[in-house]
């Protein structure tokens, strides 16, 4: 639900599978009917009848307005046509850099991960990026082992100095809290807690010291209507589990 609120009406949204897909559809149904959902596979404006398992899933062909290609979709990013993209990964650090490549040494990693895919492109080129991440100490780290997808790099003006044209991450949403980025240091800072979650828990389950800008707001719980909508989109709880 929180992720869906990041989508403004009329936004061109780059959507990945799983939770971003659900967020996109929720946004369209609730407050952003003119949002355009664009998939990395090149499928644009899908109205699937059945839940897709991936961005290239045939189910996304249904009701789509255009079937372009992967290169077409990613070129839109580079041209500056994409307003918001959603990203995840194995690790995020305090400057919003993401790692989906390797844990440990790059050439002989402890854990080899899938790799960038479109993530680096989205992180580099989208107007704004929303990061979704489970709230665990091994995921919210001081410094990612490998910068697959750039956030604000080392903080401050590092991102601009690198020549990146996309605006970078604006939000990190975990299953405990919502964060934004300090406008000067570009470090993560806590905005809001979910109902029933304490600041202490947020700090204990993060691998870096959590900055707090001011008193944390509370994230409004989903309404009954919201819950019904989510169940309708994902009836078997494949992406949402039991607890949207």
């Amino acid at each position: 639900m929180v992720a869906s609120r990041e989508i403004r009406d009329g936004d061109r949204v780059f959507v990945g599978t799983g939770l971003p897909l659900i967020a996109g559809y929720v946004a369209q149904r609730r407050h952003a009917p003119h949002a355009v959902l664009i998939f990395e596979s090149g499928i644009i404006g899908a109205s699937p009848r059945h839940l897709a398992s991936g961005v290239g899933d045939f189910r996304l062909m249904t009701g789509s307005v255009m079937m372009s290609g992967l290169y077409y979709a990613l070129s839109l990013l580079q041209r500056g046509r994409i307003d918001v993209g959603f990203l995840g990964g194995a690790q995020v650090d305090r400057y919003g850099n993401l790692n989906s490549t390797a844990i440990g040494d790059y050439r002989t990693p402890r854990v080899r991960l899938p790799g960038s895919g479109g993530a680096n492109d989205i992180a580099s080129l989208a107007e704004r990026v929303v990061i979704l991440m489970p709230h665990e100490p091994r995921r919210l780290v001081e410094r990612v082992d490998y910068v697959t997808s750039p956030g604000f790099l080392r903080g401050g003006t590092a991102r601009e100095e690198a020549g990146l044209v996309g605006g970078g991450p604006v939000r990190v949403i975990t299953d405990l809290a919502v964060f934004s980025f300090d406008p000067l240091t570009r470090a993560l800072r806590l905005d809001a807690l979910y109902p029933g979650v304490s600041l202490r828990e947020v700090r204990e389950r993060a691998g870096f010291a959590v900055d707090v800008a001011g008193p944390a707001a509370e994230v409004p719980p989903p309404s009954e209507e919201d819950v019904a909508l989510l169940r309708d989109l994902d009836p078997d709880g494949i992406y949402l589990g039991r607890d949207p």
Partner: protein
Amino acid sequence: MVDKRCTLAEAVSLVHDGASVTFSGFGHSLQPLAFCRELVRQGRRRLHLLTMGECWAADLLCGAGCVATVHLSCLLFEGYGRCQNFSRAVEEGTVAVEDYSHFAITSRFLAGALGVPFLPIRSLLGSDILTHWTLEPRKHVLMDSPFSGERVVLVPALQPDVAVIHASRADAEGNVQLVGPRSIIDEQARAARTVIATVEEVVDPAEIRRHPELTVVPGFLVEAVVEVPFGAHPTGMYRYYDYDEAHIAEYYAASRDPARFRAYLERYVYDLPDHWAYLDAIGLARLLALRADPHWGYVDPELRRAKEPEQGGS
């Protein structure tokens, strides 16, 4: 009339040890797995895979010990997780890798397809994709545009020895057609020196000419065509058949452990002489149940629930 048809075994013999190969495919679709299984059967070694998202081809070939290096953007079994054989091979040091993003590696293929030495892109800046390289003598060059000064990354052209594409249909002249999402087949086919196409059906040239807009690779760019029904199994082909969830789960479970994967390879590759024996092993009932509904282009779950009798294990 030129006739480019051959057997799968003959087509596979065009790929030599040490060749650089790219495969069609994205997620659980479009991957030339009958071809890959035959590559494994023929004992190919030291292949250099140039991949964007062909998780199946990469994982199967790494698991079978056929691979020396992998250029990749992302290798992931959607809905399951990272590729186990591929990851293990990298962690153990038996496969070396070079990482890119989707846009970067596709731009490399496109440069190869366009016949230019490089293309400029605006992603990768600031990331470790630029700071780490293993295989390329020169992975990239940073440049400020001579026209307007913006910082860009130049990526060099990629021209694989072989592109292996699985598509919907072709004629004997090698004109290859595809319905549905096409991943980066267009860039791969034009970049590669040799193109091999396996297709669900070989049709009359007149049929190809009724729908020229469906042609993805014209015959004059294709070396060999093989008719391989269910050639992407267990991945799917839009409008032909859906991906085989049960088999994918079986594969993924086996891929977590080398001994179990060896048993999987014995059962589905080494102990079977060819693709027809593989299809027999999967079973006619299962294959027919995967056929796409003409309206949806994949299996309609409501219809499946209504008509499928209780099936035992595979």
